[in-house]
């Protein structure tokens, strides 16, 4: 595997790394065959797949601002002889920085999801969403997003079952639907997901100045957050809390609902907890790219799995990883999250 990232895209790669670092500790890199455009070329026998420590990868792209100023191009290659992932930053004034990261070979990880199957969609500029979650405490784990009667979009802090309701502060932010470029959702539709990861992906979308699409379905089914432009394509899939089962006393483990619908194949970590976060980032090489050197290894090409139709056929590298978040042991008490305010009573 060898790939080349030029100019401003290096900064984008750095930003993507920073955003991903807020979600997980490991980064999976996988070059893909482009099944659509290189049909004649036989697929590689063993396309290399590897995972590296997020910390190591991030240290190469420590300061995106500095990257933009000094780095002309970045070359990423897998060196099987030395078992190293080699990242070379070719900078101004003839300076070349070479980072040799150790990696682990691993199985391919793929989450199967399809934004088109989600009936609900919200689209807004990243900036609006960043401002929408600003009032929430940095310590808050989960947030509920929904559409209230009256077609307002509401974010509300989600209280985990073991927190004392008489001590915890509850915050709610409500926005007019006009602030959204697109709002296709039923009144009363809502999902609950991790705020920390949401903030991570929002910061990336904001730095790229792109709108964010939120595709979601019923609680328990994963929510898909996408950003795209001519250079890149980002898909973030977050698990959502499932509705409480009113009939049984047993607390339903929210993640299991999401787990079963994800149909993951072959992941190394069998300790997946309730939340699974899979991120698929694709970076397009763009017209400016020249192939590094003629090499028997394929350049980064995309292989489109047939289960994800409609994804643009760009050159991509795909990274997937899983993070584990402490799950609430019991689902929320209310049968439906109350998004309209309670009537006030004097205390």
């Amino acid at each position, binding site marked *: 595997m060898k790939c080349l990232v030029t100019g401003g895209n290096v900064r984008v790669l750095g930003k993507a790394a920073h955003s991903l670092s807020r979600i997980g500790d490991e980064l999976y890199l996988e070059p893909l065959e482009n099944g659509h455009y290189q049909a004649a070329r036989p697929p590689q026998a063993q396309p290399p797949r590897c995972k590296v420590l997020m910390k190591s990868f991030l240290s190469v792209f420590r300061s995106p601002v500095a990257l933009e100023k000094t780095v002309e191009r970045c070359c990423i290659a897998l060196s099987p002889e030395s078992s190293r992932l080699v990242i070379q930053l070719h900078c101004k004034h003839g300076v070349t920085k070479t980072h040799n990261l150790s990696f682990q070979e691993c199985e391919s990880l793929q989450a199967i999801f399809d934004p088109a199957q989600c009936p609900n969609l919200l689209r807004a500029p990243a900036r*609006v969403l960043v*401002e*929408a979650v*600003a*009032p929430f*405490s940095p310590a808050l784990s989960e947030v509920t997003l929904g559409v209230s009667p009256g077609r307002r979009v509401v974010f509300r802090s989600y209280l985990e079952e073991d927190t004392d*309701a*008489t*001590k*915890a*502060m*509850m*915050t*709610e*932010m*409500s*926005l*007019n639907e*006009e*602030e959204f470029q697109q709002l296709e959702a039923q009144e009363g539709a809502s999902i609950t997901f991790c705020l920390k990861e949401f903030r991570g992906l929002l910061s990336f979308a904001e730095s790229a100045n792109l709108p964010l699409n939120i595709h979601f379905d019923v609680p328990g089914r994963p929510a898909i957050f996408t950003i795209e432009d001519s250079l890149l394509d980002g898909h973030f899939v977050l698990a959502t809390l499932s509705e409480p089962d009113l009939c049984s006393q047993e607390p339903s483990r929210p993640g299991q609902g999401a787990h079963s619908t994800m149909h993951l194949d072959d992941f190394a970590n069998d300790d997946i907890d309730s939340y699974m976060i899979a991120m698929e980032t694709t970076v397009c090489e763009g017209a400016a790219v020249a192939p590094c050197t003629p090499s028997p290894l394929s350049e980064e090409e995309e292989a489109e799995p047939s289960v994800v139709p409609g994804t643009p056929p760009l050159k991509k590298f795909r990274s997937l990883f899983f993070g584990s978040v402490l799950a609430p042991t019991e689902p929320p008490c209310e049968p439906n999250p109350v998004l309209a*305010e*309670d009537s*006030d*009573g*004097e*205390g």
Partner: protein
Amino acid sequence: MWCELGQGNFFDEFQMEGVAADHNEIYLELTPENLSRALKTAQNAKTVKIKLTNKHCPCLTVAVELPSLSSSSRIVTHDIPVGVIPRKLWTDFREPTVPDFDVSIYLPVLKTMKSVVERMKNISNHVVIEANLKGEMNLKIETDLVCITTHFKDLGNPLWASEDASQDRDSENMAEARIDIKKLLQFLAGQQVNPTKALCNIVHNRIVHFILLHEDVSLQYFIPALS
């Protein structure tokens, strides 16, 4: 710490009904960090409304109307759980009386005092604050290796209504108290705006009492002396 804010200076509308006509007050207990965070979201607000509500428990509901790009505003609502203090405990929360001080003196510019104390905190955990009726104040720290004293002069001494005790006092005599430097720094660090009046009363070896007066807010801070 004791702080008083006049309603009329802060609120366009104010409605309250206390426990009873002759006890027209409500005492609430809450976590200051919650209120502080709620008010932070109100920095660019169009309006802010604070209500006492009963959600899952008694709450102070802060409703903030924020400007938005669309025709209707954004609304942020914070529900801060509060404890309602029963009337029988109200006496615990009376305004503390001004102690019988030995010296009363105006404070130097708080910013200067803060930067001095900030550097002292790295050297010692305690600071001695002393002042006399000639407008002189010293901040002293002492360790095995070093003694550091910062002198402030010409500060001026406020006149209190009854000055009988202080009349007999030799104006050069210092009243002093040794206090925890972190507490002093907490007090100084919290001041964002220069007050209209800032003074300090010292009861020798007992307590230091700071009084800050702004246009519409008064703040009193008591720091006990250490042995």
